[in-house]
């Protein structure tokens, strides 16, 4: 059976060119870049090349790139660094819809370590309110951390504008750009963003590699303490094959970003309109315009997401859901709840996230087969739009 992979916001296929680039460093060229001999040294110069490639994609200096193990480590490092560099500042601003790498950390800091955290709300389209943001800034705000693009809905936040406001107020601005890198043009030489996190496996590099951009002269405190690797800013022997892979993946991302925003976007749009037109009681979650070109989050009313996913799995289609049953918690996704998506739709949300490897045939196959899955599950369901008075579903937006 064919596999139609439309879950690229979860992880991506390693590009064959990326694999070729890293392979020698898993086999023959296993030297340690810190070594004094040429055998290790040649790996060191390849790591330097990778750093340059990452910097080129982001429009920054190679010295401003720190390699980490994952997006979560980059996020944790950024926040912890800002807090420890400014011990008198006890306030953090973030949003309700961040990835758990930021959200859980901020809740932990609030509950266990005495910080005050402002969680900015979003409207029904998933957009932030800039007035609310400006009002939330305080003299003791240590850091503002706002994702560049949301992993569930693809909604893009105005991080460059927010970074400019933070610069005026002399507040450190960090962005979790894990979903944005490679899909949204980024030029850090033209925006005052102080720190930026990215993750390799979201852009066709392998798992286990991430990077953190830290602007020159920004006060920085390392998270990992140990050897002098990464100029003392991230101890631990470099994961050289993965670093080299990330470098190659960033180079390729620069070449493919146009394609992502034209061909992949057109495929996404075809899939989205095809499904919204053929399936009754379906709706798009998130701002239609200000959005990643590859992501579409659609809710199918009156049925449950996990059941939809397992039916799609039978057809070889891979997607994900914000329903309670898939998340391990018992509530639908925090992003959909923050947006106030009514329960009769929140439980039936499906996220399709495409990549440059998807084809039009695949999109056509999904458009052709998914409506039948929805129909079958609706036949099983005791609920329908006919009997829906909305009473059980009119849930207000979560205001925690």
């Amino acid at each position, binding site marked *: 059976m064919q596999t139609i992979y439309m879950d690229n916001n979860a992880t991506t296929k390693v590009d064959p060119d990326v694999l070729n680039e890293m392979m020698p460093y898993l086999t023959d060229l296993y030297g340690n870049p810190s070594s004094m001999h040429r055998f290790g040294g040649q790996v060191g110069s390849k790591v330097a090349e990778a750093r340059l490639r990452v910097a080129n994609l982001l429009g920054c200096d190679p010295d401003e790139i720190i390699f980490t193990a994952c997006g979560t480590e980059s996020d944790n490092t950024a926040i912890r660094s800002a807090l420890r560099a400014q011990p008198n500042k006890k306030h953090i601003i973030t949003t309700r819809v961040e990835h758990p790498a930021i959200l859980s950390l901020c809740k932990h800091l609030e509950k266990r370590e005495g910080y005050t955290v402002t969680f900015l709300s979003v409207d029904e389209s998933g957009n932030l309110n800039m007035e609310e943001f400006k009002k939330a800034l305080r003299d003791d705000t240590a850091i503002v951390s706002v994702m560049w693009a949301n992993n569930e809905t693809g909604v893009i936040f105005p991080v460059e504008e927010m970074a400019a406001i933070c610069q005026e107020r002399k507040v450190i601005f960090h962005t979790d750009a894990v979903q944005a890198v490679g899909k949204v043009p980024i030029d850090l030489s033209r925006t005052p963003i102080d720190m930026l996190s990215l993750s390799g496996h979201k852009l066709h590099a392998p798992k286990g590699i991430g990077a953190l951009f830290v602007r020159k002269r920004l006060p920085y405190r390392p998270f990992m303490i140990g050897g002098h690797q990464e100029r003392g800013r991230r101890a631990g022997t470099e994961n050289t094959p993965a670093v080299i892979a990330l470098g190659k993946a960033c180079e390729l991302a620069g070449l493919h970003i146009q394609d992502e925003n034209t061909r992949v976007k057109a495929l996404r749009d075809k899939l989205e309109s095809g499904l919204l037109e053929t399936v009754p009681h379906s709706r798009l979650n998130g701002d239609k315009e200000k959005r990643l070109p590859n992501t579409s989050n659609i809710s199918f009313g*009156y049925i449950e997401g996990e*059941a939809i996913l397992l039916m799609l799995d039978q057809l070889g289609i891979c997607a994900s859901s914000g329903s309670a049953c898939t998340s391990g918690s018992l509530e639908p996704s925090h992003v959909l709840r923050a947006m106030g998506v009514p329960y009769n739709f929140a439980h039936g949300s499906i996220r399709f996230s495409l990549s440059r490897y998807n084809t039009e045939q695949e999109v056509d196959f999904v458009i052709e087969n998914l409506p039948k899955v929805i129909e079958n599950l609706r036949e099983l369901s005791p609920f329908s739009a006919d009997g829906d008075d909305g009473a059980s579903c009119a849930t207000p937006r979560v205001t925690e």
Partner: protein
Amino acid sequence: MWEYTDKVKDHFLNPRNAGPMKDADGVGQVGSLACGDALKLYLKIDDDGIIRDAKFQTFGCASAIASSSALTELLKGKTIEEAQQITNKDIAEYLGGLPREKMHCSVMGQEALEQAIKNYRGEAGPVAEHDHEGELICECFGIFEEEILKAIEENDLKTVEDITNFTKAGGGCGKCVPDLEELLAQARGDKAACPAPEPPSSPSSGMTNLQRMRLIEQVIDEEIRPMLQKDGGNIELIDVDRTDVYVRLLGMCVGCPSSQATLTGLVEARLKEKVDPEIVVKEG
């Protein structure tokens, strides 16, 4: 991905007895759209009280659909009395087991069955209403004390996580977790068949207020403080108001993530033992 048995997958992909029944003799509906799962069970019962047919409509995940399908298969041909003996465990067993986090799907089946039988007997409408006795514990999912105690009893639940897996209570905001801990302690306490021990007479009974305060001070100075000092912490007694003892944690105890555990597990426990079982320690 959940580890579903082949039987669960089969009943999900090929549900038996799905769909509404027009001339049902008993109907039971539990759950809601908001909760993320719901089941409507229809029973056709003949004059001898034998279930001739059972059908279902389910909104929910794969295991909810499979549990409903399994329930209808279990019910067909049984008398009402036999049907009443079916528990959520029978549903799970029929399916070769469910992931622990999904046990609440089988509990939903049992609840729908109870409602359908009540409805058949004319004791209730088709839709379950919360006429439960006792307190509403979990506001997120509308779970009452009675349901939780029943799940603990029938499934021999031992942890709060188990309660959440079986009833969903505590799976939302988590505010009721302390209540669940209490219910668990209560239920498991009741289970221990030994007679309730006589409440220990308080060592401080018969003491004057001043004597009692001196005893509290003495226990803190001689027993509690040395233990905290070993970890670089300290404690200060601020006030005593009948059984409320106000203290302040100092040194390394400040901001220690386990300071609350220290207060109740160490300070309060020791004072309860040595002075008065009624004592409550508060941070002043």
